């Protein structure tokens, strides 16, 4: 009587097949191809890292290239920087065409498809990636009740993930301590829904914009209101944008607010006065952004995007290509402008000059492409398309991003400025290359309209909140679903990833603020 081992279960079979496939991929670089000459260029400055290097094709994986480049750059072994490599063909003069990411190794990306042969010399661009890695949030750390109505906006403090502010339909905003999951302050002076909340980049003030046409300023530490309401708008406030920290005259921060009444107002936060009114739009101004080069970008339901000079309060450009309402706009430097001098190292310069210098340095690092400070702009519209602009050089769009099948509600740049994520009412999130606007992938999984997306600070993950009551965390590089986070009992209206990457906060129609963490 022989004993038979039972046949492997389906799960075991799938695991074996997966493993086999992976190993197949790794091994399948033929080793008879010899070597290839590679020249590295910095993507931001365009400078080469030295003479071309000859690399055996069999070993030319991204890991090994990273190691090589770190050695070429003479980086200390203790602080190796991960790099992302992309190939740009020299044949076309424009720098917008033919950029190709090296996903795993040179052979599969370039040689196998016949783009290049081993005879050629290859020039690769490298971009440093975040040295820290954010882990995907996977569980609900706390669900905090307290708001009496739906939560309409949420924002983490730029300095840490332990402070959060939410605006709600019960006419209050609340400040939470996320470490303990408890409410700290209730900010109640508004007489109608709080539609937008925004922390100042130096973490000292919270601004809230409301349905009652006013903006109020609050001290996040004490929860007290700072002076009276900023009155002036005749309709509700749609968006708020703080002046970037490195542009502020010391102690006189300014704030731009966009409103349904078709104007944008710039407020002096200290004297609570209107500094200038930017009128020119013919419809509700849906979104406002204050760029790091002293320009204000506004998008409106009159189908146009306008660029204003913040110091003079004059119109510079009108960007009109959209065929319907412009819903949202994002800057490639949004993340650094929001966090100013706060970065992952958590060392804050002691002096005011140091802070400004650091904020300026971070901004310039994020905005520099080919040795120029370039602030890219991306706008999402009801005409199902997204436009990518470079307003400093041209009033014509760089690219038209088509693919959504319904209105596009929200766009974001990744903090490193390499990806654009767009969320639409067609239940999909789409990823685009931020350099040339090329389509990368569609993130499918939501069964309701996606209202909002947010990148993790290291740009490797993306979280999206949807009408279908869930949050989903996506891996940006592979385009796969990383975590599905059910838990909300109703639509998720607002989601935010903390600037230090530790937590995700979300709020929606079910009146509870949820904090998610690894």
């Amino acid at each position: 009587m022989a004993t038979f081992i039972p046949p492997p279960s389906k799960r075991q079979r799938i695991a074996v097949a997966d493993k086999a496939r992976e190993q197949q991929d790794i091994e399948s670089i033929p080793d008879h191809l010899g070597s290839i000459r590679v020249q590295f260029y910095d993507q931001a400055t365009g400078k080469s890292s030295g003479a071309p290097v000859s690399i055996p094709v069999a070993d030319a994986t991204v890991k090994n290239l990273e190691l090589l480049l770190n050695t070429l750059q003479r980086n200390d072994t203790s602080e190796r920087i991960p790099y992302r490599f992309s190939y740009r063909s020299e044949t076309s003069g424009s720098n917008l065409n033919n950029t190709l990411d090296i996903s795993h190794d040179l052979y599969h990306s370039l040689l196998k498809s016949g783009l290049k042969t081993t005879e050629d010399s290859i020039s690769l661009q490298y971009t440093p990636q975040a040295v820290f890695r954010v882990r995907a949030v996977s569980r609900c750390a706390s669900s905090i009740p307290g708001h009496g109505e739906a939560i309409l906006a949420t924002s983490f403090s730029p300095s840490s993930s332990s402070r959060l502010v939410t605006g709600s339909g019960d006419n209050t905003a609340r400040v939470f301590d996320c470490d303990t999951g408890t409410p700290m302050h209730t900010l109640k002076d508004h007489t109608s829904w709080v539609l937008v909340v925004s922390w100042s980049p130096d973490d000292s003030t919270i601004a809230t914009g409301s349905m009652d046409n006013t903006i109020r300023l609050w001290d996040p530490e004490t929860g007290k209101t700072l002076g009276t309401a900023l009155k002036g708008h005749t309709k509700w406030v749609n968006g708020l944008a703080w002046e970037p920290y490195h542009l502020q005259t010391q102690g006189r921060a300014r704030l731009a607010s966009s409103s349904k009444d078709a104007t944008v107002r710039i407020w002096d936060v200290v004297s609570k006065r209107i500094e200038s009114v930017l009128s020119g739009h013919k419809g509700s101004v849906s979104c406002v952004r204050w760029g790091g080069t002293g320009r204000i970008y506004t998008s409106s339901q009159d189908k146009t995007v306008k660029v204003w000079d913040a110091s003079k309060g004059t119109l510079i450009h009108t960007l009109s290509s959209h065929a319907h309402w412009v819903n949202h706009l994002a800057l490639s430097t949004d993340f650094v402008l929001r966090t100013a001098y706060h970065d992952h190292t958590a060392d804050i310069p002691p002096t005011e000059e140091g802070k400004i210098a650091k904020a300026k340095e971070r901004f310039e690092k994020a905005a520099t492409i080919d040795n120029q400070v370039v602030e890219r702009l991306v706008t999402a519209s009801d005409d199902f398309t997204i436009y990518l602009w470079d307003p400093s050089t041209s009033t014509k769009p760089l690219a038209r991003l088509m693919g959504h099948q319904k209105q596009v509600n929200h766009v974001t740049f990744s903090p490193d400025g390499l990806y654009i994520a767009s969320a639409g009412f067609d239940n999909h999130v789409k990823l685009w290359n931020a350099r040339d606007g090329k389509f990368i992938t569609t993130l499918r999984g939501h069964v309701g309209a996606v209202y909002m997306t947010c990148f993790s600070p290291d740009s490797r993950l993306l979280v999206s909140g949807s009408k279908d009551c869930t949050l989903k965390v996506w891996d940006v590089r592979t385009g796969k679903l990383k975590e599905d986070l059910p838990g909300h009992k109703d639509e998720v209206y607002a989601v935010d990833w903390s600037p230090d990457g530790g937590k995700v906060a979300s709020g929606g129609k079910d009146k509870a603020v949820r904090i998610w963490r690894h």
Partner: protein
Amino acid sequence: MPQNEYIERFQKQHGRRLDYEERTRKRTARESHRVSKDSQHLTGLRAKLYQKKRHHEKIQMKKQIRQKEESNVKSSGPAEPSSTPLPQYLLDRSQPTNAKALSSAIKNKRNEKAAKFSVPLPKVKGISEEEMFKVVKTGKKTAKKGWKRMITKPTFVGPDFTRRPVKYERFIRPMGLRYKKAHVTHPQLKVTVQLPIISVKKNPQNPMYTQLGVLTKGTIIEVNVSELGMVTAGGKVVWGRWAQVTNNPEMDGCLNAVLLV
């Protein structure tokens, strides 16, 4: 019985008593005293009738007071465009009256334990077996035994149903009385949509009718609501939801139902 409007006529001709205003003022002033005395001293049927009348009066009074109070409050700020708070990116959009309200209503309702088993039509009229079934007497063998029945009411027959051999077929469900779709009304949104039936969950008349898929008034059916785009808390699309038949389909020739909330 008064003949003609003689009182009005007299008043037009001669006017009222000179102290009429004074008397009515005094009577209304004493009215509350009279009411108080009545409520304390009436007994028996009169007391019952009086209490009932007074109860209704008080309800009306309370309502009026509440209305008055609401109108007195000064509303500051502009009126909100919708009753439920919405984020700014949804404010100018016409919200499609979708089935979303339904699913949240269901959630709220589930919290009330008593409401768990309540349905819109709690009671139905009984249907006798004689009315439900017709004895089939055609054919040689059948006529002799008389065990074959034809169902005289509308039925739902699943898509995978195949008839049994005639010899063994005890119940016949006529093709002409089979229904695949129902007009389902959403009770809150007051929207009616035609939805495919998935199954018959419960016929209140008889468990056997449930098995046979008989559709009578009060029957609980499961309908396919995937088109409505409702989602569960886990972010999955809701597929089947229960509804109760509200009409007599055999009389109307169509099937109306109301979604259970």
